[in-house]
């Protein structure tokens, strides 16, 4: 399950690393001189108090923001910046803090849209929706159905996403990202605004994705409990600066982290 582009990376090796990256809007420094890496096959958590620059970090990784300084190494290729489509082509998928689904489309179409990059049949076959185009459509529908099955959302297949409850929308967004068969999956607060039960479900899904598809995952999450259970390694940002990096236990013990969290109300 890997997207084209970039050489194969062995499990445990560095899949992506950001080196001394800095980003600022006008005067505001969102991220300053941050470096860390993500190894293939791991679940990597990025945590930190509000406004720590976590989301900006994800936006840099998948090319929505271009950092002013620093480099990004992905699958052995080093760039000073990433373009969104480069990221997508390279196999980086993501979900968003506040759901960014295609609200006018059904669950099925949202997932199918996630397959766009994998669908190659040209315009004129599309026009006829016949032969190769149909075959392709069917093949990808089949893949998408496996995701539907995996996420247990069979009963909302034809529902316009605008009508779905928040929890399901979050799950569907994960599905859309999975549909891209990513090598690296960025989750921006996948459990934000969920009740306990939904959080447990989502955690299970995240773990299953990691074990079942072997997908590398980088996630931002506020719920410390969740982070500690899910992640193999954690990097902690505060006001755009990296203040800690290590296993959940190491991080938990780290004084700087504790201060940072005591510093802000939660």
């Amino acid at each position: 399950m890997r997207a084209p582009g970039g050489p194969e990376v062995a499990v445990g090796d560095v899949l992506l690393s950001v080196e001394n990256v800095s980003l600022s809007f006008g005067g505001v420094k969102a991220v300053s001189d941050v470096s860390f890496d993500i190894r293939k096959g791991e679940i990597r958590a990025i945590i930190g108090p509000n406004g720590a620059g976590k989301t900006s970090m994800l936006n840099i990784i998948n090319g929505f923001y271009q950092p002013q300084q620093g480099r990004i190494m992905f699958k052995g290729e080093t760039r000073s910046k990433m373009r969104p489509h480069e990221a997508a082509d390279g196999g980086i998928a993501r979900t968003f803090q506040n759901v960014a689904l295609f609200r006018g489309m059904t669950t099925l179409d949202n997932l199918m849209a996630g397959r766009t990059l994998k669908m190659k049949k040209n315009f004129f076959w599309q026009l006829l929706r016949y032969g190769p185009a149909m075959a392709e459509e069917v093949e990808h529908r089949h893949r998408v159905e496996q995701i539907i099955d995996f996420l247990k959302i069979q009963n909302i297949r034809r529902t316009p996403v605008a009508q779905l409850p928040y929890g399901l929308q979050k799950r569907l967004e994960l599905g859309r990202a999975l549909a891209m068969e990513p090598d690296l999956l960025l989750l921006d607060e996948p459990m934000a605004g969920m009740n306990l039960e939904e959080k447990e479900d989502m955690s299970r899904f995240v773990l299953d994705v990691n074990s079942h598809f072997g997908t590398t995952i980088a996630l931002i999450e506020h719920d410390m409990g969740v982070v500690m259970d899910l992640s193999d390694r954690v990097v902690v940002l505060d006001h755009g600066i990296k203040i800690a990096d290590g296993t959940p236990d190491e991080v938990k013990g780290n004084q700087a982290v504790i201060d940072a969290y005591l510093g802000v109300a939660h």
Partner: protein
Amino acid sequence: MAPNASAAADTFPKLLIRNALLYGTRPAMRQKDLGIWQTWTWAEVLDIVRAYAVGLHRLGLKRGETIAIVGANRPKLYWSVMAAQMLGAVPVPVYADAVAEELSFVLAHAEVRYAAVEDQEQIDKILSVKERLPKLDQMVYDEERGLRDYDHSHLRSIDDVIEDGRKALAGDPTVAAWIDAEIAAGKGSDPSIILYTSGTTGTSKGVVLTGERSIKAATDTVIFDKLNENDVALAYLPLAWVGDHYLNYAQGLVAGFSMACPENADTAMQDLREIGPSFYFAPPRTLEMLLTRVMIRMEDAGFLKRKMFHYFIGVARRYGERILNGQQVALTGRLLYAIGNILVYAPLKNVLGFSRVRVAYTAGEAIGPDLFAFYRSIGLNLKQLYGQTEAFLYVTAQPDGEIYSDTVGPACPNVDIRIADNGEVLFKSPGMFAGYFKDDAKTAEAMTLDGYVKTGDAGFFDEKTGHLKIIDRAKDVGRLTDGTLFPPKYIENKLKFYPNIREVVAYGDQRDFVCVMINIDLTAVGSWAERNNVVYGSYQELAGHSQVYDMVEKNVAEVNRSLAQDTVMAGAQIKRFLILHKELDADDGELTRTQKVRRGFIADRYGALVKALYDGSKEADISTEVTFEDGRKGTISARVKIRDMKTEPVPAMGKAA
């Protein structure tokens, strides 16, 4: 349909081969999976199952060994049953929702070495009781999800097993010959499956059924209901339940019709609608639930639509059943019904998924006349049957055109029924079981000396229709002092079918006559009260209201009338009744957690009332301790009125069962 051909085949594997020949290209199984109905023809199924059997054999499954089947209705589990039967091994289906306790009991008792299970959930359940199952060796599963990191030394995916079998078959021609020989070697007298009765009465017992008998029975009913290879059934009831194994598996193989498995529990309703079965079974509970849903959804409809709906349902009640039974109906009636069919019945059946149903059965418990009538009146050919696991389901069934809500029909073809002196129903049937697994004592208990099976149910044959009526569990049936049969449940149910009446407790055993204590249904009677602006402050007040008494009295009178119809029951008419001042409640121990009345307990608790019922007093005082919602205890006391009923004259013939 080729019953004669099937007569030749005396095991299910042989039937499978026959079907592959007769209906090779016709669908045998469908499953809603990945958004579409995956379909397997009889030929494909045979092919898969042969490979599967070979694979299982290579895993070490041998003739005579048992293999547990745990999970929901899925083709792969049905194939597991078939594959096991091919090898002469005995499948032992277990309810998917069984708790670890029951599961371990059954698996241990059946001494299974193998288990074919649905998914991680079931595997975890089994592993949790592993130490109690020393014999258990290999498990095969359908769904891989979540099992990646499990130790696979004793775990395989069914697909792999089948694949392994295929390779073996392809690699070495003798294997094919060998498996065919195995199938041929299977004898009709061998056990074909062991169905464990759900443990409602004591610990569950393993009912052993043989292939030959199963097929005989199925063949009879298939002919009885004119089922054929074009029929479709939805397998949505537990795979371990005799009903599913008989109605879908056995009859399916005999008639060659296709069995469809739903995608999952949430979508079952939708799947029913998509697949549109032509042969359908549902227990009364399900039918009741469906009807309530219909009525609730209609409440939200626009005024006109609602009016129209209820008007035509009325029309259906008047003419529907008569038309369905082919009796003659006035032209106006037929016209109205035809219009109703366009506007209501047909669309309704369509949204419920019943459009294509030719034969539908209900069984398991007594069904309310109104409920029963509703479905029949909109043109659904719903019938009742009576049966049990020991009979491989069918004992009696209602033939088309002879349908009554209060009978279960005459004996099925080749079934021989006898009523014991204590009113217990005894039978001999083609499909009757070979005995309980590893329990000859219980087997003996369950049989009469001359080889009849004791059903444990009391019943009698209705003179007019010649149909069997089941009245109660035999052990619960008492007698009045004059010797008249007194089946409390029967009387209670007759009353409970009235929407006004929630619960009923009947007394009469070893007494001169029958009395009942009644709980009214607060919602039903409450709304009645609003409509007739009867003011009331509490349940107690409403229960004591004289108009309510009048209303209930009417119901009781009707029940008496219907009891008087049967000479057997006529003597057991209700002489006196009262309406309890409080709702019977599980928290007060008056009901079981499954909402069954605990007659004995109530008799003690309301001793004063029972006494009053029989000493002729017009009313009685009672004070009882109650537990409130929040768990506080308190006592409520009341003066409860008692009504006398006049009873119908007992028909001449005198009483005798």
